[in-house]
């Protein structure tokens, strides 16, 4: 890394702006983070209930296909023909007995083995592959796969710890809180392209400080407020984090006098949007960020996986998969669908985030020499019993710097 890639001497209480726009940093992230020893979220098993069901998705920016084979196992393969690199699978979801690249019809089974090469023996004794061409050496590259309670993760790395160890005990407990083994039901998809660096999305969900200030909608209804009971938690490495809160009352107090956007008289005309029922023990909201590409959203009764897909240094796609449980009754499903109005590209709350992330990129992109100040709640990182902190972001960058060697 060149001289312009020197991290400020203050350490993780500063975030240099070149990390959000530099193409070299972006390339290094692809290599070390998304293709490195990390478990990347790719799909829910509920999306692939039958053999042959597949899902086309991405890890970082690399296209992959997740598929359930005839034996019922989940495989994840590169979406890139072993012959000339064509991205052979073009549908988001579907069912196949085999994959055939349209260009020269190389054909693969659902485990990625090459099973057909047209004209392999030539035509009329002319051409053909060399006699020692062995299809066994030319299958699709397979990724390592780990599934837990219906959630599928994959890794390009040949060696890495088991998924449960990778999460660590505290994150695993939060994961199992939502994914407790019950069968899931997919409620639908939402996708948005945000013109901002992918890390800004992670920072946003690791930042409880902004939520009680930016999101007037949330704080007007007491859904998330700086003065309500809350905490932040991380794993031992700092790479994963969770913002946890539970509902407080919503009177204006001295403590929240700084929250200028509080509107006292704001009432919904149709209150059905905000009629949650207690579903999970203890907490109302748990937003978990799992390194390097997943946000698990449990905001009251709305549940979603938000998958981060990088699209160059200055853009990312956020692919939302909303879900419930197969055993949900109609009322619960309706509740989940109503509360989904809070989130997504048109979410009462999420709109603020996607717009502000765009503003962030518009500020940090042209000023790579600048640095962000990250001192709320101290300069180190640790679990806290409140949300007036940027501890979780500092933890993320402590780990990021190790992985990136910057």
């Amino acid at each position, binding site marked *: 890394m060149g001289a312009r890639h020197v991290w400020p001497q203050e350490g993780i209480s500063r975030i240099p702006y070149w990390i959000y726009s530099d193409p070299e940093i972006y390339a290094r992230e692809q290599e070390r983070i998304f293709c490195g020893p990390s478990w990347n979220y790719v799909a829910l098993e509920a999306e692939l209930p039958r053999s042959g069901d597949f899902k086309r998705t991405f890890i970082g920016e690399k296209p992959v296909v997740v598929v359930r084979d005839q034996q019922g196992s989940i495989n994840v393969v590169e979406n890139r023909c072993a012959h000339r690199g064509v991205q052979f699978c073009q549908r988001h979801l579907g069912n196949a007995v085999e994959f055939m690249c349209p260009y020269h019809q190389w054909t693969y089974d659902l485990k990625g083995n090459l099973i057909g090469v047209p004209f392999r023996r030539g035509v009329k004794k002319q051409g053909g592959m060399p006699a020692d061409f062995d299809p066994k050496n030319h299958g699709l590259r397979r990724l390592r796969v780990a599934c837990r309670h219906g959630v599928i993760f994959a890794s390009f790395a040949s060696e890495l710890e088991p998924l449960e160890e990778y999460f660590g005990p505290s994150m695993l407990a939060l994961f199992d809180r939502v994914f407790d083994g019950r069968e899931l039901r997919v409620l*639908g998809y939402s996708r*948005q392209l945000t013109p901002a660096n992918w890390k800004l999305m992670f920072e946003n969900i690791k930042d409880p400080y902004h939520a009680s200030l930016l*999101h007037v909608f949330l704080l007007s209804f007491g859904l998330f407020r700086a003065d309500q009971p809350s905490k932040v938690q991380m794993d031992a490495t700092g790479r994963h984090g969770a913002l946890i809160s539970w509902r407080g009352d919503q009177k204006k107090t001295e403590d929240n006098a700084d929250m200028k*956007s509080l509107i006292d008289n704001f009432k*919904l005309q149709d209150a*059905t949007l905000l009629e949650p029922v207690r579903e999970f023990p203890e907490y109302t909201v748990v937003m978990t960020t799992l390194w390097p590409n997943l946000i698990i959203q449990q905001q009251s009764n709305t549940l979603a996986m938000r998958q981060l897909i990088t699209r160059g240094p200055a853009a990312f796609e956020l692919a939302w998969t909303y879900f419930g449980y197969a055993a949900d009754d109609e009322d619960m499903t309706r509740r989940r669908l109503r509360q*989904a109005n809070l989130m997504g590209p048109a979410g*009462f709350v999420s709109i603020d985030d996607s717009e502000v992330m765009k503003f962030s990129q518009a500020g940090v992109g042209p000023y790579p020499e600048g640095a962000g100040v990250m001192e709320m709640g101290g300069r180190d990182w640790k679990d806290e019993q409140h949300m007036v902190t940027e501890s979780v972001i500092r933890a993320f960058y402590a780990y990021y710097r190790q992985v990136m060697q910057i």
Partner: protein
Amino acid sequence: MNTAERYLTLNSRDLRLELEELYAAYTACLDEERFEEWPEFFVEQCLYKIVPRENFERGLPLATWLCESKGYLADRVTAIRKTAVYAPRTMRRMVSGLRVLGWKEGVLEVRANYVALETLQDEFTRVFNTGQYRDKLVADGGRLKFKEKLCIFDSLLVPNSLIYPL
């Protein structure tokens, strides 16, 4: 003859003219950002949804935007005006290819294509969203109003955020 009957007995040309007028008034209301008037195009018990085509085709119930009553539409307007933080923009909507499918038990079914063009600062105007309206209208208080309006959009990716109605 009450208004509902009047609409039911309109010949197809006159009905089409009524609808052309209605859709022009609807898009003008939104293009001119008179959002407070927008709920008035709907009856009290209405359904307004913006849905990605992939969910619609797979029968998945999730909407990107869901309003289940006129009050709900008004709440969206409050959010646009008072709570949401977003960059300045203008949006222009085009409705074309109006198809009148006909009356069924006092409900008029209409389909049309729509395009919403978005203009942001420092950027050229772009196609923000395009798709099909699948609407159900009823005669209410002397005019046709939406009982149901589904906006099924083609591009699965939303360019950042969807703030104004379609």
